[in-house]
């Protein structure tokens, strides 16, 4: 021990009030900045979600108009055979139009009649046809149908459109007049828009739905998961646990990290060149989309898997090796189960990434306008983000709300997947 203390030591710590106050002030400032940053982020999230919800919530309801349709036997089934082929050939358009005319028995002029027909959805005749085909017994009776209103009437009722006669509006005053009279008669109501969840895409907004895109998304993600989970986990285990550490494995590691950062459209080009042109996979099909997304997500899952394996304490490996477990037994019985929550979380986050991906799928043709719900992996289909992209591009006002509604559906899926990730992690998490 030196006898003479250094000057700074002799002075001792500066415990003056001012200095301590400054230290507390710095801490308070820091907390304030942090709080500010979070508030900022929350405000933007609220604005974003608020915009989407306020734009989109109205797509979940639809305007319908009561129509008493006289299912004229002479028009639908003149021979009375109730043959389904004959019925499906019948002129339901005419049947519906006749019924529409009866709504205004005082009579309308020829030009006004066109306006009148225009307030009903083009799909009304198919609703009628479907019900008759399901139950031919009702031919000859008068049935009440709640048929969809035309999208512009729907928009008018929701307050998005204003009628005018000067050619600037999509609805003229004549149509508005018909609508108001129907409403006064209690023939107009707003009901839950089931079509949105039971139909695929359509040119007519009131007949368009997200089911096709949802099924396409499930199929694509299913293919992606089946490919990516075994390959990703096996690659992660091999690289982390078994591969020798040399220049080649370093090179592979660098390349995997690089692949994770490659723009997704490049994977789309790869899919187009290799999967479609070389392997001859069908265009726009979930199988091709799934493979492309698998390539996209694979590096993420390998990286997440490796870090989860790395996080398993070495003492567990030593314990297993110490009782004579082989290398593979050590990994399979002890390391992998402990790394599983991390691997699953990484996988689900990767899948959530794939769920929101649209660019690579555009390249392999999943941007096509598909009106049927896909039934197999090779059917043409689309996915939710691409559906959103397509609708965002459509000019009709009714597609604006459907775009936001589809975004809401996509967000619900994202939240659900993240929830599953959290639950799985909670369930499999082991503490030591």
């Amino acid at each position, binding site marked *: 021990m030196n006898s003479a203390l250094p000057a700074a030591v002799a002075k001792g710590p500066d415990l003056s009030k001012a200095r301590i106050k400054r230290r507390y002030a710095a801490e308070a400032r820091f907390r304030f900045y942090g709080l500010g940053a979070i508030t900022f982020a929350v405000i933007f999230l609220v604005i974003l979600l608020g915009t989407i919800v306020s734009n989109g919530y109205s797509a979940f309801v639809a305007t319908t108009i009561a129509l008493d349709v006289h299912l004229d036997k002479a028009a639908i089934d003149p021979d009375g055979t109730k043959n389904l082929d004959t019925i499906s050939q019948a002129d339901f358009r005419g049947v519906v139009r006749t019924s529409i005319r009866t709504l205004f028995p005082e009579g309308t002029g020829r030009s006004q009649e066109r306006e009148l027909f225009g307030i009903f959805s083009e799909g009304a005749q198919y609703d009628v046809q479907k019900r008759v085909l399901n139950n031919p017994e009702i031919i000859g009776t008068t049935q009440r149908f709640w048929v969809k209103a035309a999208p512009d009437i729907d928009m008018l009722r929701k307050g998005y459109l204003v009628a005018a006669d000067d050619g600037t509006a999509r609805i003229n005053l004549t149509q508005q007049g018909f609508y108001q009279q129907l409403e006064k008669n209690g023939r107009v109501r707003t009901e839950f828009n089931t079509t949105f969840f039971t139909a695929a895409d359509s040119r007519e907004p009131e007949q368009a739905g997200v089911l096709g895109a949802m099924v396409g998304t499930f199929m694509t993600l299913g293919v992606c998961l089946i490919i990516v989970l075994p390959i990703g986990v096996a690659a992660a285990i091999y690289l982390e646990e078994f591969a020798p550490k040399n220049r080649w494995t370093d090179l592979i590691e660098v390349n995997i990290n690089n692949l994770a950062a490659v723009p997704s459209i490049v994977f789309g080009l790869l899919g187009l060149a290799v999967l479609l042109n070389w392997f001859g996979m069908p265009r726009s099909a979930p199988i091709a989309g799934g493979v492309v997304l698998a390539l996209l997500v694979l590096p993420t899952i390998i990286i997440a898997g490796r870090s989860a394996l790395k996080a398993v304490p070495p003492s567990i490996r030593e*314990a297993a090796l110490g009782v*004579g*477990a082989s290398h593979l037994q050590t990994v399979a019985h*002890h390391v992998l189960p*402990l790394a599983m929550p991390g691997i699953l979380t990484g996988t689900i986050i990767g899948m959530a990434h794939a769920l929101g991906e649209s660019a690579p799928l555009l390249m392999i043709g999943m941007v096509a306008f598909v009106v049927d719900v896909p039934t197999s992996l090779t059917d043409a289909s689309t996915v939710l983000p691409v559906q959103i992209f397509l609708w965002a591009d459509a000019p009709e006002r009714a597609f604006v709300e459907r775009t936001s509604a589809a975004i809401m559906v996509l967000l619900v899926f994202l939240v659900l997947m993240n929830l599953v990730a959290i639950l799985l992690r909670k369930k499999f998490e082991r*503490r*030591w």
Partner: protein
Amino acid sequence: MAEINVTLPPRESSLAARKIKLSARDVGVFYGPANALREVNMDFEEHQVISLIGPSGCGKSTFLRCINRMNDTIPGCRVVGSINMDGTNIYGAEIDPVELRARVGMVFQKPNPFPKSIYDNIAYGPRIHGMASSKSELDEVVEWALRSAGLWEEVKDRLLQPGTGLSGGQQQRLCIARAIAVHPEVILMDEPCSALDPIATAKVEELIDELRQTFTIIIVTHSMQQAARVSQRTAFFHMGNLVEEGPTDMIFTKPKDPRTGAYITGRIG
């Protein structure tokens, strides 16, 4: 200790001339270019506790890990020389390190039970080595191992609870029971009490003395009192060399090498 109410049958008469269980010849270890251990020549007799002492980084743990070829798992680690167990070189081509580790068990510095039930911790070794052919046989093995480790009375009512829920000392005895369960010939212990409180340490030390009847035990320790209490022979390592080896009382009372004396009296370390 009263709760150890099981007698371990000795493998053979321990009073007769003791057999050499292990003999190390010119053992050296390299981590890459660094030579961590040089030319160790040493014999280990059966049914004895041999302690390896020395300052940190002297190579005693490295040497211990040579005996069950645990160093094989470290990339870049190379072992030269030979270690004969019952006359067979464990570094010979015909020896499988996985099989060897079933014959040479190991207990680590920090208690490291598997994050599984107490039962599964013990049963894991017997299961992977196909020792028990039925559930009841396995139950017997588990009870025997836990009794041998003096843990049975404390845990018999909660065998299906996680082993990680036990206290530190109980966890370490669980790890000893896990090593015993595959009935090895040699048990290596790498500072088994360094993470334990004095009472738990005393229990483990008593257990080590009991286990000597059945197994040959090699223990690395930083506590010279512990070496003096539990071991019959002691080896002193310094800077990668085996400095001196002999009966424990001789090492502690009449060390031949001045470095041993200096370490024991606390002048180097």
